[in-house]
C-alpha cells in the first residue's frame, strides 16, 4: 500500500513554523556576527600577536575544531551550571555556535592574511601607517576577497548547524518541526517542509552574502574592458 502524503496537518501549524524560522534566522544572525568578530580577532592574534596570544589562539582553535558542536553545546548548557554559571538554552546556543564559528573562521581569516604579501604591509608602514591601520586599510579587503567563497561556505554550514540547538530545546526551526512531528505523526511531510524552509533560509543568506560582497569589493569605475569599449564609442561618435 502506497503512502499517501498529506501536508495539511503540518501546514496548519504554520504559525509555529514561522516562529521557528524567525528564531533560526535570529540565532544564525547573532552567531554569525559574534562568531566572525571572534574569528577575526583570534586570526589577527594568531597572525601577528605576541607568543602567549598566539598560543592561546591556537589552543582555542584546536579545541573547538576537534570536538563536536553538540558536545560544546552540552558543555555550556549542562556543564557550566556546575561552575555556578547558568545560561538559558538560547544564550547557550548563541555562545556555542559563535565560538564554534569563531574557531573555523579564524583559520579561514588566517589563510587570507597569509595570502596578502608582507610587502603590502611594509609599503603601508613605510608610509607611516600603524600596524593596525595597515591591517584595516591595506590588508583586510584584499584578504577578505581571497577567502570570501570559503568564508560564505562556512557560514552556510553554521546556519544549518543551528538545528543542533534543538538538542537543548533552544528556540529554532528544527525544534518546532520535532514538536509538530510528534503530535501529527506526519514525519515525512514535516521534515520535507523543514528541508524546504532551510533551503529558503540558506538561499536568502547567500543573496545577502553576495550583496555584502558587492559592497566590500566594489570598484568605483567600470572594469577596463568596458572602459575600452566606451572610449571606442566616443571616438566613433566624433568621427
Amino acid at each position, binding site marked *: 500500500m502506497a503512502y499517501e502524503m498529506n501536508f495539511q496537518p503540518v501546514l496548519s501549524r504554520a504559525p509555529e513554523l514561522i516562529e521557528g524560522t524567525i528564531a533560526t534566522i535570529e540565532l544564525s544572525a547573532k552567531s554569525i556576527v559574534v562568531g566572525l568578530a571572534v574569528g577575526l580577532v583570534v586570526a589577527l592574534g594568531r597572525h601577528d600577536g605576541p607568543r602567549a596570544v598566539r598560543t592561546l589562539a591556537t589552543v582555542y582553535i584546536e579545541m573547538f575544531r576537534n570536538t563536536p558542536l553538540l558536545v560544546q553545546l552540552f558543555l555550556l548548557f549542562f556543564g557550566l551550571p556546575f561552575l555556578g554559571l547558568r545560561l538559558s538554552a538560547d544564550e547557550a546556543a548563541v555562545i556555542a555556535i559563535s565560538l564554534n564559528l569563531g574557531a573555523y573562521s579564524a583559520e579561514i581569516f588566517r589563510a587570507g592574511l597569509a595570502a596578502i604579501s608582507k*610587502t*603590502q604591509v*611594509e*609599503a*603601508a*608602514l*613605510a*608610509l*607611516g*601607517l*600603524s600596524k593596525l*591601520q595597515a591591517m584595516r*586599510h*591595506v590588508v583586510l*579587503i*584584499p584578504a577578505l*576577497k581571497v577567502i570570501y567563497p570559503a568564508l560564505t561556505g562556512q557560514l552556510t554550514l553554521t546556519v544549518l548547524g543551528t538545528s543542533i540547538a534543538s538538542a537543548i530545546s533552544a528556540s529554532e526551526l528544527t525544534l518546532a518541526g520535532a514538536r509538530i512531528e510528534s503530535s501529527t505523526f506526519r514525519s515525512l511531510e514535516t521534515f520535507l517542509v523543514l528541508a524546504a524552509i532551510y533551503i529558503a533560509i540558506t538561499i536568502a543568506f547567500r543573496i545577502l552574502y553576495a550583496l555584502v560582497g558587492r559592497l566590500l*569589493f566594489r*570598484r*568605483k*569605475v567600470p572594469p*577596463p574592458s568596458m572602459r575600452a569599449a566606451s572610449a571606442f564609442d566616443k571616438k566613433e561618435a566624433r568621427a
Partner: protein
Amino acid sequence: MSTALHIEGLKKYFGAHEVLKGVDLEVASGDVIAVIGRSGSGKSTMLRCINGLEPFQQGRIRIAGHVLGEGPQNLRVLRTEVGMVFQSYNLFPHLTVAENITLAPRVVRKLPRARHDELVDKVLSRVGLLDKKHAYPDELSGGQQQRVAIARSLAMEPRVMLFDEVTSALDPELTGEVLKAIQELAETGMTMVLVTHEMGFARQVATKTVFMHHGRVWESGPSEEIFGNPQTDELRAFIEPNLK
C-alpha cells in the same frame, strides 16, 4: 649644506649572519646618492634600516632630525619623513590611484577630504600621470605603477626618498619613464638614496656614489670619480662588465 641623513657604525645581523658590518654614510640635503654593489651585499637591508623596517643591533642613524638607535622605538613619525619606493611597486590593488595616494595623508595626517583632489593633482603631475587618477593599479603598466608609487610617497612630503632597485622589475622599454621621473625629482632638490643597477643613470644623476661590498661601504665618492677612476679591485671588477 645641512646633513639630511647620517649613518654611523651600523651593524645588522640576521641570526648569526652579519649582513651590515659597520656602515657609515653621510648624506647632505639635496644630495642624490646612488648605492651600487652585488646582490647580497646589504643594499636593501641598509635602506630598510633607515626607515625602521628592519631593526639593527649596533650603530646610529640620524635622519631628518630623528635619531634611530638599537631597540624598539616610535618609528611612525620618522617614516612620514622618509619616503620609500620598492622594486615591486606595492600599490594597493583595491584602491584607485587617487585613493592609493591619499590613504596615508588621510589616515596618518588627517588631511581633510576637501584637500585630497589638490594633493592628488599635485603629486601626479610630478610623475606625468594626471590622467590616471581614477584607474586601478592593475589597469596600469609596470612603469606607470612605479610612477604612481613615487607619487604616493611624495604625497607625505618626505624629506628623504629611498629607492630600492625601482626599475629592476620593469621591461627595458619601461625603465626610461621611471628614471625620467626620478631625475626630475632630483632636479627639484629632493634628497635621495637610490639603490640601482642602472650604472649610466647613477653616473649621470647621482652627486655621489657608494659601492657596497660584503656589508660595508667599500668605496664612495663623487660619481664621476667612482665610475671614472675606481680605486679598489672589487669596484673595478664590479663596474667594468657593466660599463663594457
